[in-house]
């Protein structure tokens, strides 16, 4: 099988696997007083320092969570008290579901948030703005620096969901000028089950916890740490600093698809190097995904429900794609995708597209 669905989850990096397995052998609760506890605590704090070094901010203001979704929900809850929530139209469900009453800022055809509309909403009073750095379905990048400047000018807080960008392009709390940043271990080649919310000093000062429990994470997130998973998370964060540039391979995949009748709708835009959105006109996206799976290629479309059905993409709808929104697949290259993988994808796509276009002509 050729795995081209890295935006769903990246393959585990060997260094992350090694760190995870090594840490599993350490018995001890990081909150315990004794030596065993201190050994676990050391793993945890080293991981915290690694993340701070890689993604900005202070180690003491990193809150470990169970994943990206929790980090996003925690940001909305922890920083949204007494503020209106403003989100982009293409945000992940992690944000949309956490802020069901949010004001929604539209995006343009390239998936970038409308800064004029954002500015107008910010003028209405205290707010928490939630924007994703890179979109999970298209790889589109929001103009975060400009949005951050607007937020600063209006005294608003800015939460950035960097789950897809961290490890693939430069993404840091301080570099982006955000008040908080959500990260996910398995989207950078670590094990699933850990994430983090990085807080700026301003944000840390006003943060309201959701789960208090035993007071872990300086009272910001209770519950015993998944120490081994966090060790793997940190190793992946370290490892993805040396990721090869995937843009060349991605462009080759898009060219092959276009020669076979597909349309690479994000080509030429500012976006993640590993992500392609490809429309096959007239063919439902779920049919394309299934046909490619049967041909040994793993890609995705829209948002998968727990039933496994492919729901229509709110992201592509928000970008104004209309019918094409239901006919577009996501091809997302993994850190270890090779030229041979892309060649195999090109062959399979050609065969599948030829059959589907003939049938649906």
């Amino acid at each position: 099988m050729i795995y081209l669905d890295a935006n769903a989850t990246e393959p585990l990096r060997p260094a992350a696997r090694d760190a995870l397995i090594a840490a599993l052998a350490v018995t001890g609760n990081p909150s315990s007083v004794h030596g065993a506890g201190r050994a676990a605590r050391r793993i945890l704090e080293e991981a915290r320092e690694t993340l701070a070094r890689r993604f900005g901010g202070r180690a003491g203001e990193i809150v470990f969570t169970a994943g990206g979704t929790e980090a996003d929900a925690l940001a909305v809850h922890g920083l949204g008290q007494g503020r209106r929530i403003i989100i982009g139209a293409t945000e992940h469900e992690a944000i949309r579901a956490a802020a069901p009453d949010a004001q929604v800022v539209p995006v343009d055809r390239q998936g970038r948030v409308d800064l004029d509309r954002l500015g107008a909403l910010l003028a209405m009073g205290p707010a928490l703005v939630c924007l994703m750095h890179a979109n999970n379905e298209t790889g589109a990048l929001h103009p975060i620096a400009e949005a951050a400047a607007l937020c600063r000018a209006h005294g608003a807080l800015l939460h950035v969901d960097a789950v897809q960008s961290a490890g693939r392009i430069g993404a840091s709390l301080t570099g982006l000028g955000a008040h908080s940043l959500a990260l996910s271990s398995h989207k950078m080649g670590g094990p699933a089950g850990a994430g983090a919310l990085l807080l700026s000093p301003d944000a840390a000062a006003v943060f309201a916890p959701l789960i208090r429990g035993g007071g872990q994470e300086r009272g910001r997130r209770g519950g015993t740490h998944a120490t081994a998973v966090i060790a793997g998370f940190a190793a992946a964060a370290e490892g993805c600093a040396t990721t090869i540039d995937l843009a060349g391979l991605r462009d080759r995949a898009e060219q092959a698809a276009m020669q076979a009748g597909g349309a690479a709708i994000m080509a030429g835009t500012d976006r993640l190097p590993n992500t392609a959105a490809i429309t096959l006109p007239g063919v439902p996206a779920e049919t394309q995904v299934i046909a490619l799976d049967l041909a040994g290629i793993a890609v995705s479309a829209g948002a998968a429900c727990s039933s496994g059905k492919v729901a229509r993409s709110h992201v592509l709808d928000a970008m104004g794609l209309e019918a094409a929104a239901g006919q577009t697949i996501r091809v997302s290259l993994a850190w270890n995708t090779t030229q041979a993988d892309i060649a195999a994808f090109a062959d399979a796509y050609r065969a599948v597209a030829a059959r589907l276009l003939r049938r649906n002509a």
Partner: protein
Amino acid sequence: MRIVVAMSGGVDSSTVAGLLHEQGHEVIGVTLQLYDHGAAVSRKGACCAGQDIHDARRVADHIGIAHYVIDAEARFREAVMKDFADSYAAGETPVPCVRCNQSVKFTDLLALTADLGASHMATGHYVQRVDGPDGAELHRAVDPQRDQSWFLFATTQSQLDRSLFPLGGMPDKATVRAHAQRLGIQVADKADSQDICFVPSGSYADVVAKLRPDAAVPGEIVSESGQVLAVHDGIARYTVGQAKRLGLATHDGEQRRVVLALDPATRRVVVGPKREGTTTVRLREMNWLVPPATRRCTVKLRAREVPHGAVVSAEGVVTLDAPALPAPGQACVLYDGSRVLGGGFISA
């Protein structure tokens, strides 16, 4: 062969998938999500997928075949649920399972079958496909208790040519369950599904009322001469021949009244003594699985009834040997022995 199996999550289609896989075919399991389960059972926060979808996936995983869930909600709502409500609102008695077979299953799923490069689609229906000199023929199931041929009369010849019904030749359900046991299929003991799938609570009138509120508006129950006998709470609750829910109009002296006709324009339910019935039945949307011609045949006007002797014309006018009470909207299926010749929907 690469074969798509329509898997509902029940024992029948699960067994079909298992048997075809056992025979060495490349089997692809597909489950249709037809409606939002959470909304159907009116439980907020319930998953959109019912237990059946999870069962289908578990069975496919056990057998070791690929399995996909297809979102057919929009199409099902339009082609089946809306038609169901519209039909009741028009004073008819619909057969949603036939509409579902016609649209979602034997049109859309067969299209997907071709898209996926598969030669055939197999289902768990109890009917037999017999390969005759002029292509595939549709026959009753071997087990008369299970026969579903009445629900599949609208399958076209080209759809039939690409369909497989491996359970049609099974002597009885116990044999199917035994195969399921032998194949280690976990749903082997699962109860048979009942009634209409998108009416989980059993109150179809509530579903109709939601989609067509006008069909739930109260009206009068009248005699054939127009005398008002009682009131009703929506014509959607009545079908021709029905003797229940007539309230004060239930009896005419010693005699029981039944529904004779439904008039959606005046929202009137017309009742009277049970009639002898009619011998002429006009059919619409005819589907022929043999060349259309005036033919002697047997017909079934309901899913479960003893066939009537009849003559049918090429235009779909049925002349019954003896009078019967056909309900508009129901199917009239034509048989020659075990073979389905075609059929149509009964016109008012």
